[in-house]
């Protein structure tokens, strides 16, 4: 079974920089000096997909998305 690969993308216009996502997914999201998320480059490791989904659904601004790679 070939698994779809995903990447995390933040909409910087929608994002308010409150940093909820970085708390839920510190493995892939750090914060810049102003509190805005810096997303690790590359695909989301399969083991972190569920955590990434949780971060996506917890974002109060709907600014975070999991995008299938190659689309």
């Amino acid at each position: 079974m070939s698994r779809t690969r995903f990447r995390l993308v933040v909409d910087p216009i929608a994002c308010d920089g409150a940093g909820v996502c970085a708390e839920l997914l510190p493995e892939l999201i750090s914060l810049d000096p102003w509190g805005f998320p810096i997303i690790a480059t590359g695909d989301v490791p399969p083991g972190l997909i569920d955590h990434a989904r949780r971060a996506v659904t917890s974002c109060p601004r709907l600014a975070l998305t999991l995008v299938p790679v190659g689309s």
Partner: protein
Amino acid sequence: MSTTHHAGPVGPTRLLAGLSGGGRASLASHIDQWGRIPDATPGAILDALDASGLRGHGGAWFPVGTKWRSIRKAGLRTPVVVANGAEGEPASGKDRLLVMQAPHLVLDGLALAARVTGAGQAYVFVPAEVVPSVRDALAERTARRLDPCPIEVVVAPDRFVAGQETAVVSTIAGRSPGLPTFQGITSIRVKGVGGRPTLVQNVETLAQAALVARFGPTWYRSVGTESAPGTVLTTVSGRWDGPRIVEVPLGTTLARALGIDPAASGLQAVLLGGYGGGWVRPEIALTMPFTEEEARARGTSIGAGVIALVPTGICPLAEVARVARYMEGQGAGQCGPCVNGLDTLANALEHLAWRPQGLRGGAAAIPGLCDLVEGRGACRHPDGVARFVKTGLEVFADHAALHASRGPCAPHAPFLPVPNEAVRGAVR
């Protein structure tokens, strides 16, 4: 290719050869000068564009044929085409000149794009001062039913990012004027104005396409080099009294095109590609083949053709700081990393220029700030500023060391144009 092309003008001056030097060329004088576009199928026009090697002259240098094909294939909805003449870059004047004096060449290119992509609506997106020239030209064309679809003029807001393609789309659609939007993974080529596949093409690119359609790819490639064919309009400042628009054959050297002796140029640096471009040492900038690839290999881009020749005797760090502050103010104020990052960056540069002792970490801290904004906005505005600043700090490293050891330079008249500039040299 079965299309028969006319014989085109000989020599390296093409777009500018057509300009009367004064006012707008009427439709009659335009047709007199250039003739009509020969009848050809959309497929033949696309083949000619591909074969010509024409790329976009609005900044990104994307192959034109490929872009038009992608719109044709984008979906079931009727596409929209846009001539982008916003030219928000203060150091650029080539698009205004072209639209002002040769609007019919631009409109020919737009009509061609509409026909090839099957568009149902076209727009001309230009600053207020050139709107009358376009309106008059459109009136002449409507009377003769020259165009395949309605063409509407939309005024481009006076702001650096207004010509960024998502800002163009949102302004035309009547949403946030002059502000970019976040496209995520969908391109405006698939979903742009009114959700329709949208082609945004620079006005000079369209004018060049109108020449390719007339005279053919072999003619287009008779100037320039194999890998970088044709010419590009540039706005040159620092060589003559005021800025001048020069048509440069690609692949030549600027030393040759501008008549400058690289061994005695009296220059301190050359800014290529404008305020989102990058700084190059004069001996390199003047002698490298003038092509997008060569510019990229040196950390910059030809971009929209801005060439600023900065003489010795002025403080380059003051220029970098002035432009960085201007670019910070020109951002759309929408994205956290852009809003905060560019302000922090401009602050650091103002310190380096005018109060170097007050800069924590010294000049060495600045490239890291550039990394912090790069790729983190909804549009590439911060990326351009980052490139401008990073290359500046490389080329002016010795000067930065002088500021650190000896203090700032004496104030002098500004060099690079910055509209509505606040008090210069103010350190926040």
